[in-house]
């Protein structure tokens, strides 16, 4: 009695039939036992019934092609049957297939490792814990890096000839000069939007002219500096991370160290000092462009002429309004450059790392800039300026 287990298909199909002879089963293999057939064969082989048998013969005689997957399925079945205390014999292996069958048999000694992902809740809790610990460690590492940069900065100040002037000037050009178009455009638009929104609200009280005061205080004290810092964090902080990170991947950082050069001195200080010089200038520029946008909008929306705008502006400013914005800029610059370089040096040697660290660098530096801004506000409030 022959039982066909799987439906034979004409061309590439693989199938097998089983034939019982007393206490023994003969499993004859037909067709091409290849990867494309594995899904069906996998299921069919698990359902072979061996009830009441002592012996199984697997007959390779009519087999067409065989690949590693087919060979594995047969080996797995054989092992499973042997596990049920049946005696299994392999018959008529064609000469051409013998090397493959033997290789698979030889290389797959142990059972494959069970690959079981842990359940979702454990994974979720583990991730929270891991992130908290990592965040704490990140903060400590950043603090340590801050210390290292500060130490090397002092050492460089004491021996100014060690400062890399060419690199410094290049950084100022790259982070400062090249940021002018985008920063100018955005600040101008912010000035326009502020003037428009301010005028809209203040007109209800007949106090349109105070739009100028609103513009002056908000742009000079906060917006100009924050805009410049955020754009620089996105443009230059990310670039620092990517540049230094790529150097890390290429082992260029290691090369520097072995050449006796100080990474902080060569790579970090020019960037930090360059940005500390550039950002106050950018902030000033953003202030000017923001006020220009506001002035033009005031002219068209409220009919405030430029001389009238300037007169009102002068009256709106206290001694400190302008300096409050500018003083913050070097601190923001230091935070952005420090975080950018720090994340760059944390890059590991794999493809995803540079991208991950760059994202983290931008997010972390903007976060820290806003925290610093809040602390400045508290400080200025206490100082009454």
């Amino acid at each position, binding site marked *: 009695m022959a039982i066909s287990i799987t439906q034979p298909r004409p061309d590439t199909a693989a199938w097998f039939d089983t034939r019982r002879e007393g206490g023994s089963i003969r499993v004859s293999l037909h067709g091409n036992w*290849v*990867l*494309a057939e*594995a*899904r069906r064969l*996998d299921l069919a082989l698990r359902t072979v019934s061996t009830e009441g048998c002592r012996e199984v013969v697997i007959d390779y005689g009519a087999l067409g092609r065989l*690949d*590693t*997957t087919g060979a*594995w399925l047969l080996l*797995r079945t054989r092992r499973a049957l042997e596990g049920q205390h049946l005696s299994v014999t392999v018959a008529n292996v064609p000469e*051409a297939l013998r*090397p*493959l069958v*033997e*290789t*698979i048999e030889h*290389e*797959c*000694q*142990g059972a*494959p*490792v*069970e*690959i079981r992902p842990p359940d979702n809740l454990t994974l979720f809790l583990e991730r929270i814990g891991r992130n908290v610990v990592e965040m704490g460690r990140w903060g400590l590492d950043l603090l340590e890096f801050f210390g290292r940069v500060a130490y090397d900065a002092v050492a460089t100040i004491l021996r100014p000839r060690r400062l890399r002037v060419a690199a410094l000037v290049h950084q100022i050009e790259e982070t400062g000069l090249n940021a002018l178009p985008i920063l100018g455009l955005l600040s101008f638009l912010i000035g326009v939007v502020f003037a428009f929104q301010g005028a809209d609200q203040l007109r209800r009280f007949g106090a349109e002219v105070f739009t100028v005061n609103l513009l002056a205080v908000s742009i000079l004290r906060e917006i100009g500096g924050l805009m410049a810092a955020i754009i620089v964090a996105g443009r230059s902080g990310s670039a620092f991370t990517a540049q230094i990170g790529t150097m890390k991947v290429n082992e260029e950082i290691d090369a520097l160290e072995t050449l006796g050069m100080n990474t902080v001195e060569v790579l970090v200080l020019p960037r930090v000092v360059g940005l500390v010089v550039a950002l106050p200038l950018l902030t000033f520029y953003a202030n000017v462009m923001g006020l220009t946008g506001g002035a033009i909008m005031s002219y068209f929306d409220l009919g405030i002429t430029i001389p009238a705008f300037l007169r009102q502006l002068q009256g709106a400013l206290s001694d400190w309004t302008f300096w409050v914005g500018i003083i913050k800029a070097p601190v923001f610059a230091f935070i952005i450059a420090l975080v950018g370089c720090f994340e760059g040096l944390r890059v*590991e*040697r*794999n*493809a*995803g790392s540079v991208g991950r660290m760059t994202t983290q660098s931008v997010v972390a530096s903007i976060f820290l800039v806003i925290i610093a801004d809040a602390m400045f506000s508290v400080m200025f409030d206490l100082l009454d300026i």
Partner: protein
Amino acid sequence: MSAGAAEIVIRVEGLVTRLGGQVLHDHIDLDVRRGEVLGVVGGSGAGKSVLLRTIVGLARPQAGRIEVLGQDMTRLAGDALRLLQARWGVLFQDGALFSGQTVAQNIQVPLREHTDLPQRLMDEIAAVKLGLVGLPQDAAQKYPSELSGGMRKRAGLARALALDPEILFLDEPTAGLDPISANQFDELVRDLQQSLKLTAFMVTHDLDTLRATTDRIAVLVDRTLHVGTMAELVHDPHPWIHEYFAGVRARAVPDS
């Protein structure tokens, strides 16, 4: 390994490639027969890797015809190309494993893309491939960054073998390995080639690899190819080839 019928699995005719204004290949012809291991050698920058990349369709030639398994590579697109790609495997220089995935997941990438096997069977297949390339089973759960260079190459080979390809392309498989690991890798390639009946196209610098694994060698010099067995090439009058095989002539080829 000639095994009677010399079916051609890769046929390159009149191939011209230019890279940055420089001609790398000037009308070269090459036939790779089924079941053979062909080694491609040449000086640095001679365009060995470019030849491999052109054959697998990663670079476009300026002129010429490339046929792989009877299909014209330069015209193939879409599903036909995908089907053909499932019939070869490529091992890149440093393994080119996807760094965000474990070794087992790497091996399963082509399986997921081209088949619809249940996860359990894919895990088993990954384990089989690991065994084939001689990696311990616990390597399955590791990420590429946790492996040594030699292990990464083996894992890359396991991925290249995932779909039981007919042709295996190897780009400098032993570069950067110590001589012992390189020897083991040579043996591995030879064993696999014999038991899986693969055709292999191997770019290499390594004379020992050439001797241990290849049936024929194609030397890329002066923008053309000199093809032959090692015993034939040893007598090639071209100065570069002469110098390249000088060491071999001195110590290994018995009938020279």
